[in-house]
């Protein structure tokens, strides 16, 4: 018999951990058979649309809805007055503030929701929006957070200026919070006495996650059975259910929230938006389903932005380049309402990871949040709670220090990396890094790109440029990042009081296949593929025989959702743990069937075998069948389990990136010649999916670094409200990336995995930015702010005299 199944065959058949399993999602997506919220069409469904403010700051003197209501096909027009009796004209934000659902007396940003029209179809709704007459009295507009902190103009008249906010005392009527971490006096003392100090101020501009599918929902209140169903673009459907219950007073068991297929999220779909609340109210009022889906302009102008951090740093070092201290202050522009999506105790997210990958003995971080007349938000666009800002800050400070010391920044990084033997490493700002081997990763990266050769080439180019032989200069962008992902633990991290655990539930069917449900929700990450791989390896059932479901709160166990790269570190851990529960029961069943003691059988790929007698075994299929058809003494029938996983710590993926860029100094056009990305995300579940995540994250990083921004004029007009002005790279602008990896498992995660989806964005932004800035370093550049669009690059060249 030649066709004997070997152990390797059995492992391969599982399609478990470590293999590049093809995605199970792709069959429906490639055929146009995805099910996104806008694809829903329920009988009698109405359409909602917003009247939005053209002004950034204005008092509303009147709203007249008569003409709109008179239009055939218009069912209702809601204003704050209609929501007030229900207590729904304002809603709590995730950051402990509150936000107007519909403008209550005044508007605070352009595009703010003023009235909600409900009509029979989208065209009638649009017509009616035009017919709602709103009279405004303009108020002074503040778009600069520094001006805001000095202004007599009170933006938030609803707040008592002397009362503390959700995060402590407020210094001014437009101030939101001060958040401090570390030892400021000690840090200042070290910096004052240091051999070398580098200082820099930098602005990490406002941008937007801009998923291709905008936000939307369908609310359906079934008045017969009293149940509300809400389908929508929710990255955290269970939290939405809890919030909907708290806001509406409908008991939580009477609310079902469903996230169908989601067309990208990147942080934009974490929050709760006025459109959801208005749709629910409209469905309750009308008794029929109501759909609200925003258009692109509404998405860019009103739903959650990212970044907008003004960062000032001081970094000190010895003459040899050993960093001795770091001081960071941030003025954070939160817009009109503090609607950041951060764990409650972290009003600036995990910005205190800003000591980066370096062994910095003492540090201080202070963050002041400020109100302005801009859209609310402050979500983590493809990163874990402000980590992108933190990594950008430290990776720029390293470059500036290298300039100050006239040394190579690759070497400066090497001197200061946390050493392998220092892990678990306690940072000066309070984090415990779980594992890392930075030197190995750095050396591998520099060798892969022939770093010394690149520097030589760059020096030659500078000389050629000076001789007038070329108008193109060359930049070598470096970055080394450490991410912090996988929030919880519950003791540190909660959203609106809900601890940040996650969950997995599995049911093995009698014939040996299974269904598993998790508290997370894929927005393109491929959970249905990769979670099944974790379970396959743990349980010994092929991934092809495991259905994964997420996003329906009536069926999935409670979880905190997918953002901050938390799915693999938290729900992935729950999957591994639930698998082990199944295995424990399967072991007892196998021992019974094999008539041996529990301890005399052991797990082997897809079966339990009698120790020392591998010819005696029971496959997982046989065990599953027995679980349902045999009365086994002392063991309940069935084979299912649930696990709620509270991670003991976060995970700390890291990576080393190098970007080689040419810049045409006369046009300001950058050309990426090479991009090398080494990622260490611990144990690798599916290399194909990891690589795809890295390509995508790097491309979003390229966008942010090289042109993507939400910009306002002095009147608070959003200047980047369409894709005409808001930069999304096309295939033409994007290079091919070289990916590489090292593997340093997380010591506390059940399978050692760390999460990867956001790493390329976090590490990519400083890498692209550093490449631009490095090209100009030989000509005297120290720091210029992103986004490095063609105009700004040209301007840098011009300021440095390169056009003279």
């Amino acid at each position, binding site marked *: 018999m030649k066709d004997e199944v070997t152990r390797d065959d059995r492992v391969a058949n599982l399609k478990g951990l470590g293999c590049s399993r*093809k*995605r199970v*999602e*792709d*069959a*429906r*997506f*490639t*055929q*146009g*058979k*995805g099910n*996104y919220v*806008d*694809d829903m*069409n329920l009988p009698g469904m109405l359409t909602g649309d917003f009247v939005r403010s053209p002004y950034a700051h204005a008092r509303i003197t009147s709203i007249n809805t008569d003409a709109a209501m008179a239009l055939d096909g218009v069912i209702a027009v809601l204003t704050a007055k209609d929501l007030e009796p229900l207590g729904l004209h304002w809603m709590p934000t995730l950051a402990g503030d509150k936000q107007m659902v519909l403008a209550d007396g005044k508007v605070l940003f352009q595009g703010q929701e003023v009235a909600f029209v409900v009509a029979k179809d*989208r*065209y009638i709704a649009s017509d009616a929006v035009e017919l709602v007459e709103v009279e405004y009295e303009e108020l002074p507009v503040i778009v600069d957070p520094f001006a805001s902190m000095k202004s007599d103009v009170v933006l938030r008249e609803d707040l008592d200026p002397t009362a503390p906010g959700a995060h402590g005392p407020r210094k001014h009527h437009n101030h939101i919070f001060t958040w401090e971490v570390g030892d400021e006096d000690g840090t200042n003392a070290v910096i004052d006495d240091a051999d070398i100090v580098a200082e820099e101020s930098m602005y990490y501009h406002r941008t937007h996650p*801009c*998923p*291709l*599918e*905008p936000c939307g929902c369908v609310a359906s209140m079934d008045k017969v059975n009293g149940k509300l169903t809400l389908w929508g673009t929710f990255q955290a459907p269970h939290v939405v259910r809890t919030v909907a219950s708290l806001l509406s007073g409908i008991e939580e068991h009477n609310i079902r929230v469903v996230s169908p*297929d*989601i*067309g*990208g999220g*990147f942080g934009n779909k974490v929050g709760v938006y006025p459109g959801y609340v208005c749709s629910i109210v409209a469905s309750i009022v009308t008794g029929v389903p109501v759909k609200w889906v925003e*258009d*692109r302009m509404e998405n860019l102008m009103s739903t959650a932005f990212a970044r907008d951090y003004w960062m000032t740093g001081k970094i000190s070092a010895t003459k040899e380049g050993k960093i001795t201290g770091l001081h960071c202050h941030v003025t954070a522009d939160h817009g009109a309402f503090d609607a950041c999506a951060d764990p409650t105790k972290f009003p600036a997210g995990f910005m205190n990871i800003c000591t980066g990958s370096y062994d910095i003995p003492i540090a201080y971080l202070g963050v002041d949040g400020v109100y302005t007349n801009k859209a609310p938000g402050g979500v983590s666009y493809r990163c874990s709670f402000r980590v992108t800002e933190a990594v950008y800050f430290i990776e720029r400070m390293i470059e500036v220090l290298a300039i100050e010391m006239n040394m190579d920044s690759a070497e400066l990084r090497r001197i200061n990396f946390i050493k392998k033997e220092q892990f678990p490493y306690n940072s000066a700002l309070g984090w415990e890094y779980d594992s890392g081997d930075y030197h190995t990763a750095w050396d591998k990266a520099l060798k892969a790109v022939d770093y010394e050769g690149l520097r030589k080439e760059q020096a030659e180019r500078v000389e050629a440029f000076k001789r007038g032989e070329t108008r193109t200069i060359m930049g070598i962008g470096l970055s080394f990042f450490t991410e912090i992902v996988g929030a919880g633990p519950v003791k540190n991290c909660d959203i609106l009081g809900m601890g940040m655990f996650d969950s997995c539930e599995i049911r093995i069917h009698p014939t040996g296949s299974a269904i598993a449900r998790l508290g997370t929700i894929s*927005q*393109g*990450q*491929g959970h249905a593929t990769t979670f099944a791989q974790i379970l396959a390896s743990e349980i010994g059932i092929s991934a092809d025989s495991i259905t994964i479901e997420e996003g329906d709160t009536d069926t999935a166990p409670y979880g905190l959702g997918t953002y901050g790269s938390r799915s693999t570190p938290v729900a992935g851990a729950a999957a591994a743990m639930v698998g082990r529960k199944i295995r424990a029961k399967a072991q007892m069943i196998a021992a019974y069937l094999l008539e041996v003691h529990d301890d005399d059988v052991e797990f082997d790929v897809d079966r339990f075998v009698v120790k020392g007698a591998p010819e005696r075994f029971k496959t997982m299929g046989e065990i599953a069948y027995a679980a349902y058809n045999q009365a086994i003494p002392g063991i309940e029938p069935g084979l299912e389990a649930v696990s709620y996983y509270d991670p003991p710590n976060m995970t700390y993926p890291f990576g080393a990136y190098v970007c080689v860029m040419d810049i045409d100094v006369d046009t300001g056009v950058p050309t990426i010649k090479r991009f090398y990305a080494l990622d260490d995300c611990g144990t690798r579940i599916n290399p*194909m*999916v990891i*690589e*795809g995540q890295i*390509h*995508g*994250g*790097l*491309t*979003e990083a390229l966008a942010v670094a090289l042109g993507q921004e939400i910009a306002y004029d002095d009147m608070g007009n959003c200047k980047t409200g*369409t*894709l*005409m002005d808001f930069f*999304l790279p*096309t*295939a*033409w602008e*994007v290079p*091919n*990336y070289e990916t590489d990896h090292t593997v340093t498992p997380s010591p506390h995660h059940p399978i050692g995995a760390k999460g990867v989806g956001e790493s390329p964005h976090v590490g990519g932004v400083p890498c692209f930015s550093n490449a631009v800035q490095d090209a100009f370093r030989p000509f005297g550049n120290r720091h210029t702010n992103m986004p490095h669009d063609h105009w700004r690059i040209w301007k840098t060249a011009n300021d440095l005299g390169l056009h003279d």
Partner: protein
Amino acid sequence: MTKQIIKLTVNGEEQEVLAEPRELLIYVLREKMGMKGPHVGCETSHCGACTVEMDGKSVKSCTMFAAQAQGAEITTIEGLGTPDNLHVLQENFKEHHGLQCGYCTPGMITRAHRLLQENPNPTEEEVRFGIAGNICRCTGYQNIVKSILSAAAELNAAKEAAQ
């Protein structure tokens, strides 16, 4: 507004539909004909999620009136292969991880389908230029380009074998 009858052929099937002159083709396709593959992403012709093929050209159905499609032959993603017999492009997008969230995918594959009619043997550069009207936020395009080049090679090999 007065509705008019629009006759068009969608994925080989002649159809009649009532629509106002101002109704966009994308909404008629999605909401009146059940073709939910093409999506709305920007409504300004930039993202290409709504791409369909009309009379041998790729068009963005979010910035065309349905009335402009009077008498036209339209192919959407739904017309490119069946569950049992996927189009070579669909197979290759699956094989090379050319998609993630799937929102751009129908428009992207429909565009790639047209591109390969226009240029059956494109270079990587020609593929990148040819799909520059279709935005993907997830993949960074690298695997999309790989999928299209691989599909082209497969189609060309099949053509050669047939000759």
